[in-house]
């Protein structure tokens, strides 16, 4: 089993990464650094690198500006409607970013965007129009996906800071503001910074929104530049070099995040229950609520309403409501075989990838936590490597590796599955680790001493206890997999087309109404998956005790 897990990690992650390295360093005439030289000297490429950094920086900053006030409001004040704020953050996070981008194109594209049309042609106020195809626009459509990272980390940090830490400052004479600045802020700062860095890493990896918003405005970023290098004739060497630079940026950010969190680990350790008195905001809580509603409107209400409206209209424009129709749904679900196939493919791929990633995670987690095999740490580290690989980089690596082999995987569902599987192994490992840490080893040991073999103790004790967490992990993989675009865009063929790629292709050909319908279908699948999962998890809890450890 251990050998099998190692072999799989080798094939899924290590060897593709190796091909990437070789591909970037070996040219026609042997070893060369020319690819890297071009990547950093040619304006084409360093501009993309610069754009990616600018995008990541502003996205991270805005995520803090939105996430921290929301986190503070929810965990420390008497803000009305807290469940609404929590829901806003979850939906914003779960909404596929490239669909949000498409929604905003329908509202703010320079010529046809309905808001722009309204401002220009109805109100005759061209000054109030906004061109979404700009860096500002790109940051704007990316932040809804990234601010929830800051929100979640900051609110859990705020909740876990023991109230007595702040009370001790107050009893020593520090006022509320001084306490906030000298005690609370330093305690939660690592969590906030960590959330911002995760937001940064996620933001720069999003191929979809960067292609949809960036390309019409001639704003190239690393993912779109790498993608363009696969136009005929493909430039593998340069693509590999850019990919490695991309990995370096991502890994540096993640390393910084981990190091900072680790050094200040007392922050989230919290200790006993926090017991904070909610700050009474008085009338200003309505101001804060207005801010929350604004965030909701921008991240959810506007884009969803736009997509629904577009999907129901014959032709998108100011008078769309005069000719509503369901034809777009019939087109993508019944008439058009490409979208039908894409939906089926994505369902299959997401289900398989989730199952495989979680199974692999369970095995790796078990090796790491329950055995003393000397190389178990290495297995654990390798399984986390995909965290540092943006989707499109994973695709480049897998492509280069499998193209060298005599097995014709290119263009099949199998190569997509390999990419998804590899990408989501870290999520599976994390879910399994969490589950196993909560299961005391003596629960397994007591089965063994009663006569159970290793297999029987796994079947009767360990796996049943892990099931809820593994199921949650499955969903955690399924949701991003069903909307996966960054890796699929390089690996698909007309037979193995996926949901997100179909959306992107339809968008490129200008079928905005059909795109919107497909987007709604995509979101509906995600919603259904979550609803089913909740139901199953709820049913599980009824028959099972609260804590898995005794």
């Amino acid at each position: 089993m251990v050998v099998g897990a190692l072999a799989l990690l080798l094939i899924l992650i290590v060897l593709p990464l190796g091909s990437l390295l070789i591909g970037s360093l070996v040219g026609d005439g042997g070893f060369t650094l020319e690819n890297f030289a071009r990547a950093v000297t040619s304006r084409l490429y360093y501009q993309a690198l610069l754009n990616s950094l600018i995008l990541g920086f502003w996205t991270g900053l805005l995520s803090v500006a939105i996430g921290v006030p929301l986190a503070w409001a929810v965990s420390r004040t008497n803000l009305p409607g807290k469940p609404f704020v929590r829901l806003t953050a979850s939906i914003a996070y779960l909404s596929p970013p490239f669909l949000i981008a498409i929604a905003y194109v329908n509202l703010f594209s320079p010529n046809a965007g309905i808001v722009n049309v309204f401002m220009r042609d109805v109100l005759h106020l061209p000054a109030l129009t906004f061109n979404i195809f700009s860096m500002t626009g790109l940051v704007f459509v990316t932040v809804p996906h990234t601010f929830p990272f800051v929100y979640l980390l900051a609110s859990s940090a705020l909740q876990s800071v023991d109230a007595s830490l702040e009370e001790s400052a107050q009893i020593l004479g520090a006022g509320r503001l001084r306490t906030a600045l000298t005690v609370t802020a330093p305690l939660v700062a690592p969590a906030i910074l960590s959330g911002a860095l995760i937001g940064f890493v996620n933001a720069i990896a999003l191929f979809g929104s960067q292609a949809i918003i960036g390309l019409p405005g001639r704003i190239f970023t690393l993912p779109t530049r790498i993608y363009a290098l696969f136009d005929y004739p493909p430039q593998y060497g340069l693509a590999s070099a850019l990919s490695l630079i991309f990995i370096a940026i991502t890994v540096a950010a993640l390393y910084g995040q981990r190091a900072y969190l680790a050094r200040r680990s007392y922050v989230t350790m919290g200790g006993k229950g926090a017991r904070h008195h909610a700050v009474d905001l008085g009338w200003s809580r309505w101001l804060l609520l207005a801010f929350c509603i604004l965030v909701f409107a921008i991240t959810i209400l506007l884009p969803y309403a736009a997509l629904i409206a577009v999907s129901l209209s014959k032709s998108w424009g100011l008078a769309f409501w005069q000719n509503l129709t369901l034809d777009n749904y019939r087109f993508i679900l019944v008439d058009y075989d490409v979208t039908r196939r894409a939906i089926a493919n994505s369902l299959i791929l997401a289900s398989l990838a989730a199952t495989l990633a979680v199974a692999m995670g369970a095995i790796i987690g078990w090796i790491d936590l329950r055995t003393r095999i000397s190389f178990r740490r290495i297995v654990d580290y390798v399984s986390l490597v995909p965290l540092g690989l943006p989707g499109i980089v994973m695709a480049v690596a897998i492509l280069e590796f499998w193209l060298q082999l005599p097995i014709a995987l290119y263009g099949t569902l199998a190569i997509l599955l390999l990419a998804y599987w590899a990408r989501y192994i870290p999520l599976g490992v994390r879910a399994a680790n969490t589950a196993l840490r909560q299961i005391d080893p003596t629960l397994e040991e007591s089965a063994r001493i009663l006569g159970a073999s290793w297999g029987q103790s796994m079947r009767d004790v360990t796996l049943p206890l892990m099931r809820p967490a593994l199921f949650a992990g499955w969903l955690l993989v399924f949701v991003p997999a069903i909307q996966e675009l960054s890796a699929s865009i390089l690996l698909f063929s007309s037979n193995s087309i996926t949901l997100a790629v179909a959306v992107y292709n339809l968008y490129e050909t200008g079928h905005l109404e059909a795109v919107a319908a497909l987007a709604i279908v995509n979101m509906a699948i995600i919603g259904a998956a979550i609803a089913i999962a909740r139901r199953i998890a709820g049913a599980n809890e009824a028959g099972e005790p609260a804590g898995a450890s005794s």
Partner: protein
Amino acid sequence: MAGIAIERLSKSFGGGDTGNAAVADLSLDIAAGRFVTLLGPSGCGKTTTLRLIAGYLTPDAGTIRIGDRELSSPQHVVPPEQRGMGMVFQNYAVWPHKTVFENVAYGLKLRKVPARELITKVEAMMELVGLAGLGARYPHALSGGQQQRVALARSLVVEPEILLLDEPLSNLDAKLRERMRTELKSLQRRTGITFVYVTHDQAEALALSDEIAVLHRGRLQQFGAPRQVYAKPANRIVADFMGLVNLLPATVISASGGTGLVSASSLRLMLPLPKGAAAGAAVDLAIRPEAIKLLPLDATTAGTVPVKIEEQSYLGNLSEYYVTLADGTRLRVQTDASIEHRIGDQALAAIDPERCYVFLADGLDR
């Protein structure tokens, strides 16, 4: 019936340096049907020893046998499931996803016991440990004591020859602990199963055991009946660990025929000497607090020393004092509570040599 023969057992974690060994060169013969306790402070290697016996760990050296069957050696370890033992863990390790009945029945199911017999056995066992009628409950709906009984029942129902218990009472509150102690003792007597019991609580060990093995830093210090270990501690560590003791640096004044005159502070006592303690040797004198009697100043008993009362506390069934000898040496004294001495009073202390021990000052560990 199964006894356990442990021979020259060693186990260390990490380095493999014997200085850091969790268990070092441990030999122990546990006779069949006995209640044997491994006693020592945390980190003394008692739990490691138990886990070696259970087969969860592989020894670095030495063997464990039952009868003529070798269970553990560095080369080969019979896995836990093939040892026919039972084990009760400190945290009970009751499976939270199974009902009480399912927990208890698990071992029988593995042995493919027919359904009817299984139900009879499980119910009889639940009755025996006082869980009758709770079979359908989940563990989270049970108290700590009840969970402990589930763990016991689960281990006993498969009729093991040996039951290993790892501090099973330490998570219970004081009252329940006393009661479970009595129940464990009678359970062992009724079933005749060999119990190997791990605890750091010397009172528990004294009350429960047929034999106590005192461990310190992975080494066996003494193995014997409770009375023997308490009254005749083999060394200073055992004396210190088995109940309260005053330890004074002392000198042998004269020695002959295994006994000698020992001097510590203003005390002069004729005591049996350990081997190698000749006249002039530096030794440790151990005096149990209950070996000291406090008498009024006008008492005429021979061999007393004057002391001054420094602290006094009333413990109900007895009184505890801290007294000082002429040179300021402090002694802890426990006496009958009926006579009261006040702080600051002078008194005479009479010391019962039967309850004093002399150890060589160095060579604490054998």
